[in-house]
Structures are given as C-alpha cells and as structure tokens.
C-alpha cells in the first residue's frame, strides 16, 4: 500500500490507455544524453552489422539511403518518465538490413558514434519492431536527437533507441551496454516499468 501524499490531486490527462504506468505526456521533445553531441559527416558515416562469425555487412550513407524506407508513427517512452504519442519517423526497417545476414546469435549490442552502447535481444529488433531512422516529423533528424541516424525500438524504454547509431554487434551471450551497466534494467519494458536493475 503506497503512502498518500496529503493534498495531492495531480493533473490527469486522458491518454486512452496508451501511456505506461509512471509516465506522463509531453508535447515537446526532451533531449537526454550522457555527453556532448557527436557530429558525424555523411561522407564518413557508415552503418555495420557484425555477426558472431565475424562477418561484417556495411552500408555507406548513399547505400543506406537507397534502401526501401518506411514511415512508422509510434509512441515513445523515456525512462525519465515522459512519453510522446504519435511520433513520425522515416527510415529503414531492421528487417531490411538483416535480409542477407546469417546469424544464430540471440543478442545484439548496439553501438554509436561517441561511444554509447545498449543491448537487447536480437528478436526485439526484428519483425517490424525497429528502424534506423534519419527523419523526424518530416525533417532531417537533428544532431541533438541522434542525427544523422538513430535506432528506434518503440516498445522498449527510449535509451535502447541509440542515437548516432554506428552498428550492431551480434553476440551469443548478452553484454550489458552503457546504462545497463550503470544500474538501469537490462531489458527495459515500459509496460512492466523495468526502469532499474531488479525491477
């Protein structure tokens, strides 16, 4: 039984059941990151998938932009408690990027320009659940929001949606990333409020 805070009423907003427990809605787009914003020139940008058999699949910016793109509209949920509904993006489904990748690995470690990492089960990236996006709300993705390209995995807390994404390393064993090592939950399901280690 939780403690009642005397006189607290709160500001309730009908969200149609789309906001996970402990979250509140925002209309702006907050920025959170652990260090300075990396600037990645497009002629030096690349995205790579490294398999557990040490095979690497690489895309330059031109090759990446030539892939078929999708325009997902999704709700996003940050562990710092804000949620944002109906965000619209443009990018490439991970299913497209994984088409020619042979792997039996179960885990993915996502890594970024700037050194950030985050881990998740590979199956959480596939079957229409994740994208590498380069546009937000019809505009090029700003560097502060992860441009030129970021991962989005809307069904997990947003720290899994690595900004400035550079590649994915496939692993047979799980390997905790940056925030997962710093006390945050290893999986991060917002509907189960998996915020911190042990939740």
């Amino acid at each position: 039984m939780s403690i009642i805070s005397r006189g607290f009423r709160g500001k309730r907003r009908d969200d149609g059941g789309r906001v996970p427990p402990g979250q509140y809605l925002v209309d702006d787009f907050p920025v959170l990151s652990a260090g300075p914003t990396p600037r990645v020139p497009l002629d030096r940008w690349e995205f790579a998938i490294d398999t557990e058999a040490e095979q690497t699949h690489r895309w330059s910016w031109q090759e990446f932009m030539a892939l078929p793109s999708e325009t997902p509209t999704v709700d996003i949920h940050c562990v710092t408690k804000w949620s944002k509904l109906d965000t619209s993006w443009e990018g490439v489904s991970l299913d497209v990027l994984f088409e020619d990748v042979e792997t039996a690995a179960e885990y993915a470690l996502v890594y970024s320009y700037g050194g950030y990492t985050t881990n998740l089960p590979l199956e959480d990236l596939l079957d229409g659940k994740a994208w590498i996006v380069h546009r937000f709300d019809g505009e090029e993705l700003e560097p502060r929001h992860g441009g030129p390209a970021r991962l989005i995995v809307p069904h997990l807390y947003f720290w899994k949606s690595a900004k400035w994404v550079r590649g994915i390393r496939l692993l047979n064993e799980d390997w905790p990333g940056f925030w997962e090592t710093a006390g945050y939950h290893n999986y991060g399901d917002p509907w189960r409020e998996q915020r911190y280690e042990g939740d």
Partner: protein
Amino acid sequence: MRRLTWRPAELVEGSAETATARTLRFRVPGWPGHLAGQHVDVRLTAEDGYTAQRSYSMAAPADGDLVELTVETVADGEVSPYLTEELRAGDQVELRGPVGGWFVWRPESKAPVLLVGGGSGIVPLMAMIRERRKAGSRVPFRLLYSVRDPERRYYAEELRRPDPGLDITYLYTRSAPDGVSRPARRIMLDDLAEGGWPATFEPDCYVCGPTGFVEAAADLLLALGHAPERIRTERFGPTGG
C-alpha cells in the same frame, strides 16, 4: 541483485531557495546512501490511488537517512508545484534511489573538476561541491554558474563563503549586478576559456542545465580541446525529467 524499493520519506524542513525554488530535506528510513550527482525518483499518490513520478537531483552528499532536493517550480507542472507550494513538514511522499552512476563525482578522484551549471542545473553540482568540502578533498574545483539574474542564484549565501580551492564565476544572462564587467549574455567561448581549466589539465567536466545550455556549453568545451569522454552531461528542462 539490488532492488530499488519505494521508501516513505517525511519532509523534515523546507526552505525557499529563490522566489521559484525550494530546498526540501526528507528523512528516509533505511536510505542506503548515495554519490554526489545521483538523483532520486519521487512518487506522489492521491487519495484515490492516482500516482505521479518525477526524478530530481540530490543537492547534498549522503548524510545518514537525510536526502536533500532543490526543486524549481515548473509553471503548470504536476509534481513540482506540489513539492514547492503544498508540501509541509511532517507530510510524506515516496522516494526511490539512488539512481545514476555516470554523472557522479567521487572524492577519491584526483583530476581537477570543472562544473558548468545553467539555472537549476546547479543542484547536482552543488552536491559535488559539498561532497568535496565534507571529504576534505584538495582537488581544485571551478564552477561556472549561468543564471538569469542575481535573484535566481541558488545557494547564494553558502557559495559566498570562502571555500579554498573552489573558484566561482557567475555568468548572468539577463541582468548582471552592479560592478560586474561582463555584459549579461549567454555562455560563450571566452567564459569557458577564462573561468574553466585548460584542456591540457585534463579536467573532468560536468555540465548540467536545460538542453540548449548543455548543448552550447558542451560544444564550446569540445572547441577548446576537451576530450568528449571527459565531458559528462545531464540535461533537463521543464519536461526533461
């Protein structure tokens, strides 16, 4: 595996920090202690069971079962106006933490420290300043504190007292007090070049404040040659947690 549990927290005392910010001291039985720079989650529950949670940085180092926060009132906010205007000594909320192992300063660290705070971003930096003093550390600290005007300064009286090895520069953005030669303006390269450390000293840099401020300050530090891995940032605005 360590599980962070919600703990009842009773307000011991609250005092006005500025016209829009209040410092709150809670007693939290069983509190496990924390590092300077970490934050807590605060949960409020209404009589009908409705709850709201937010994260707040702690303003002071570990002190038994006491946890100190400074909260800025967010106009039209849900949790901060309750904490700054309604909550009285003896009232209870719930706290969970400590959270965050990155934006922290440890007293055994030997590198010089540059603290760059914008507005309420001073709060976790103040915990570091107080931790340094409490631990008797001789590591040199420099604080650059950007505020709109003198009335917006948090912890003004405490920061006025001499603290050997801590240099403080105020950067006023709207109106500077008499006798300050720097015109009121946003943070610029000169401010960090003069009030900070040379990059060759390899200081640990902690930047905290609203997003625009943190973006600008971190970019300026990079331009001055500081290594990105030595620049730790924490960003928040009214909605940034």
